């Protein structure tokens, strides 16, 4: 892995780590996920996070791997895909979580019920860094 991709990975990981704080500032989104309690694995393929969600709030975010930790579903994408997804106006094909799975940039696995019942919530939660990402990168 070269230094450029290392740098991208580090920026993506840092941006992911900020999602719980960004979510706390978005009460309407927490309200949208108010019926959701779930353990899931989200983030870049190389450094995904174990995420614990209670009543729509992220109460714990832990960098993987964690020995024998369970999750119900995972959504993992390449660091490049997240970098594109978080642009203010993402390119076609990089603008939606399922656009990324269709083009093979992301993988959705496990028990999809919590993901599908709260699909717009997860789309919006994982888009939260978009507001800050371009500034952080520049």
């Amino acid at each position, binding site marked *: 892995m070269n230094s450029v991709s290392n740098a991208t990975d580090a920026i993506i990981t840092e941006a992911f780590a900020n999602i719980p704080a960004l979510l706390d500032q978005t009460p309407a989104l927490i309200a949208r996920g108010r019926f959701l309690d779930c353990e899931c694995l989200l983030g870049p393929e190389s450094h995904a996070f174990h995420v614990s969600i209670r009543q729509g709030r992220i109460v714990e975010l832990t960098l993987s791997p964690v020995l024998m930790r369970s999750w119900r579903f995972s959504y993992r994408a390449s660091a490049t895909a997240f970098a594109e997804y978080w642009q203010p*106006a*993402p390119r*076609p*094909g990089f*603008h*939606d*979580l*399922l*656009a990324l*799975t*269709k*083009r093979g940039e992301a993988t959705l696995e496990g028990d*999809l*019920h919590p993901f*599908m*019942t709260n*699909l*717009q919530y997860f*789309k919006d939660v994982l888009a939260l860094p978009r507001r800050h990402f371009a500034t952080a990168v520049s």
Partner: protein
Amino acid sequence: MNGMIEPIVGRYLHVDIDGEMCRIYFEESGAGIPLVCLHTAGSDGRQWRHLLADEEFAKHFRIIAFDMPWHGKSNPPASWDGTEYQLTTARYTQTIRAFCKALQLDKPVVMGCSIGGRIVLNLAIDHAAEFRALIGLEGADFQAPWYDTSWLNRPDVHGGEVCAALVSGLMAPQSPANARAETLWAYKQGGPGVFKGDLYFYRVDGDLRGRVERIDTKVCPLFLLTGEYDFSCTPEDTERTAAAIAGASVTIMEQLGHFPMSENPEQFRRYISPVLDRIVALEAERAGQR
């Protein structure tokens, strides 16, 4: 503007579809060349409200948008026994032809989006002489599935929420927030299983690969327009389809997705206006030859 009344008029038409009388709601405005507009799967004719309200287009076209049975203000047929709704290629084609016949439209232009963009290809294959021109938005002979449609109709998942959430990403990020929300509202309001039933045509019954080569654009001009942000029917899907049809016109629309007419009406107008102008010009040429 307080008190403004739009020029759109809505009425109900009784249409015999394959021996069954259906009460179909339609809206119209303008006068001239009949232009019948087909909504996307799981939605209804409200998607066309901006086109219907366009005073410039209404000078040359009688613009008509109808709700398919089970959609919008068109109820299921009286004989429906609750069996899961499924749209087939034959049923969809019959519905459009029966509607045009019941309204006594003289060689209408038909413009459809998504499933409507697919079915206009079937109209071009089998019934081209009945139409003055055909316009397919977000249309292709086939496209690769990108989710399991069984999520759209099950009791443990909110149908409206999941239908809207799935299609939300098909719109361009540049489209105005209010227009995006309005587009999704129709998906949130759809009847249980209707979106899934429409996709039976899209995914299972309506594969037109190997058939579109038969389209003769000299009999009926064909215009295909697809948004660059549509990852369901991609620009590549439309371009591949058009490559097999001699004389088909293709436009890839920037900053638009799968719902061009409703997600960003102003941007869509930039692309559809030249197409409608071309149809008016063709009509003038034909009139001159008569």
